[in-house]
């Protein structure tokens, strides 16, 4: 476990892609920013020439699998993967075994994160007991626990009961919480295997229609506005959803939304291989949806990028498509994919990337000390990224336990060189500390 101490002088980094400066980290904080800073005695100097400095990334949607599926990932292995991806805080989803629906489970996950020490692990609490969608879990107890839970989600399952969703939205207002909805109308998606459209029809795989996502988002936006609460929409995947969220924001609904890196770049025709590494929920959609998601992220309709990092053991994917598990890992590739899809295309500046991958997710999750400006006095949660070091994604070389990355073999334009958590490197020279 890295110690929360040490002095580091970062030479020649480009904050948010701007002109190079030096940054000094002492006692967990940024204590000086400027050209040619003198190195204090005992300071470790990091040559960051050409590297972009961003605030440490914050993931609002991570599956760490512990407790219950430690064969796929643990809090420790998942937080190492997070650090390798430039993250200093992640939100651990509630669909563990047992489900994170009590103060005991969320405190366990929170404590495991503290012990691992690679990033701050913020547990997400389940909205309903056992994710069963029948009655509210002890949301208040989780909020008051040592884990200070603020994000609640039945992710993997939709809170489809409109009345229960209304109650959940209202209840979390008491402590400024947010309901993160996995928008999936259950009856329209029974047995669904992939996006419903030309490809599913040709492949004979039961379809997951866009309307099943869009109908729930529309309903929830109206509900959130009616009760004056905060709604967060998980992993938006369709053009129609972007349109609905844009409309809801225009009429004053307090809704935020996320998109995953994979939905920004991959399309449903990859299912033609029947390789379940491309099976995910919500499913990969069409090129038209990908374009709309990029535009939505660029214009702020979609607030953040969240990974939906979903590790699975080999046997869960080396099977027929219809029996394979849904989900793909994404922590270690997220920034590279955003660089390719949003920065290289001119849709986002690095400052906007910092907003969408650090500041905004920290705000939505009410995470203190993360997503802050790169300024003197702020916590030294920082990632150094080399934008000119193309890397071929190697599934076998992942820091997490599972290798189910859909980007294997793909070239991404840059790589994480260093990640600092409160001034202490969790990653240095591209390697986990």
């Amino acid at each position: 476990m890295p110690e929360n101490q040490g002095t580091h002088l970062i030479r020649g980094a480009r904050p948010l892609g701007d002109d190079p400066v030096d940054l000094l980290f002492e006692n967990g904080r940024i204590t000086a920013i400027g050209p040619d800073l003198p190195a204090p005695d005992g300071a470790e100097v990091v040559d960051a020439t050409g590297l972009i400095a961003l605030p440490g990334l914050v993931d609002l949607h991570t599956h760490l699998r512990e407790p219950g599926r430690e064969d796929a990932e643990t809090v420790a292995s998942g937080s190492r993967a997070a650090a390798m991806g430039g993250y200093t805080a992640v939100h651990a989803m509630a669909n563990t075994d047992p489900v994170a629906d009590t103060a005991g489970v969320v405190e366990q996950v929170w404590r495991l994160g503290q012990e691992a020490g690679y990033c701050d692990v913020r547990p997400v609490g389940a909205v309903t007991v056992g994710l069963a969608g029948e009655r509210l879990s002890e949301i208040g107890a989780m909020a008051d626990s040592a884990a200070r839970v603020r994000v609640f989600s039945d992710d993997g399952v939709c809170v489809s009961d409109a009345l229960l969703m209304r109650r959940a939205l209202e209840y979390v207002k008491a402590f400024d919480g947010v309901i993160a909805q996995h928008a999936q109308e259950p009856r329209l998606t029974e047995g669904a295997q992939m996006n419903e459209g030309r490809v599913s029809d040709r492949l004979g795989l039961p379809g997951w229609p866009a309307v099943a996502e869009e109908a729930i988002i529309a309903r929830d936006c109206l509900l959130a506005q009616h009760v004056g609460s905060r709604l967060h929409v998980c992993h938006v995947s369709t053009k129609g959803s972007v349109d609905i969220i844009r409309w809801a924001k225009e009429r004053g609904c307090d809704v935020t939304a996320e998109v995953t890196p994979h939905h920004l770049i991959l399309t449903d025709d990859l299912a033609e291989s029947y390789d379940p590494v491309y099976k995910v929920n919500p499913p990969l959609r069409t090129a038209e949806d990908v374009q709309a998601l990029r535009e939505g992220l660029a214009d702020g309709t979609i607030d953040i990028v969240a990974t939906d990092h979903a590790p699975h053991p080999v046997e869960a994917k080396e099977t027929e498509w219809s029996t394979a598990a849904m989900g793909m890992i994404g922590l270690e590739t997220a920034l590279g994919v955003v660089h390719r899809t949003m920065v290289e295309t001119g849709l986002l500046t690095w400052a906007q990337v910092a907003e969408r991958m650090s500041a905004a997710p920290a705000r939505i999750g009410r995470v203190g000390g993360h997503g802050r400006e790169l300024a003197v006095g702020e916590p030294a949660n920082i990632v150094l990224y080399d934008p000119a070091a193309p890397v071929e994604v190697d599934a076998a070389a992942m820091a997490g336990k599972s290798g189910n990355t859909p980007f294997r073999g793909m070239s991404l334009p840059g790589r994480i060189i260093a990640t600092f958590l409160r001034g202490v490197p969790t990653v240095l020279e591209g390697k986990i500390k």
Partner: protein
Amino acid sequence: MRHLLSAGDLDRDEATLILDTAGELAQVGDRSVKKLPTLRGRTVVNLFYEDSTRTRTSFELAAKRLSADVINFSAKGSSVSKGESLKDTALTLQAMGADGVVIRHGASGAPHRLANWVDGSVLNAGDGTHEHPTQALLDAFTMRERLGRLEGLRVAVVGDILHSRVARSNVLLLTTLGAHVTLVAPPTLLPVSVHTWPCEVSYDLDEVLPESDVVMMLRVQAERMHDSFFPSVREYSRNYGLDGERLSRMPEEAIVMHPGPMVRGMEISAEVADSPRCTVTEQVANGVSLRMAVLYLLLGGS
């Protein structure tokens, strides 16, 4: 051609070669000794995860007529039912030296997955709601035998298109071979993107029949009714079933096909099923010759 996974993998020349080869091999079935030495010493595994006596027997007979060693590996009573994965089963078959694996599986795409894990040829004998390429080939063979051509032939495929692997393979193959396909079904039993398929679509069987040289009736499982695909078996049968009255409105030479098993009284009346214009038993007989041709072309070379 290493595998036969989809009817769409065949170009016109390859498909025609299979049909022509089947025509030659059909003569073997007429001899007193119905056997050729072509695949002697080669091993064909029938890997059937779904019960299908008809298709499995057809493949078994085809392989045996070509003198191949045939192993039937059914999901029941094998390690498959103990939870062995498709991959481990594939590696087992690989270790046993299977030259060809004929697979029937309830999951769409299972043959594609299998082809990644074995060196031998994989033949798709029906996968989920995806494809059934040898059925489409034997259907085309039967049409060509009965009507003398495929080019320009007007074929209506009627029934549960949405869940039909037979329909998918037939649309692909018949289009490749120059026939014109019209799919006929209630809108609930058609895929949402069917308008992008290389065929016509109609909701009205009576309108299509007089313009069809072939009508292919597909089985509709009664349980679809419980999912509200249509209101009742009676209403389905009234609108989309083929009875003698409807048959009489087809051109005189037109034939009635069915991949079996038929549900008499649902999609086809007993009168039509038993009429000489119905080719169901010919399709079964042709299935053996056609599967011989496919096995021969996939496994016979070098």
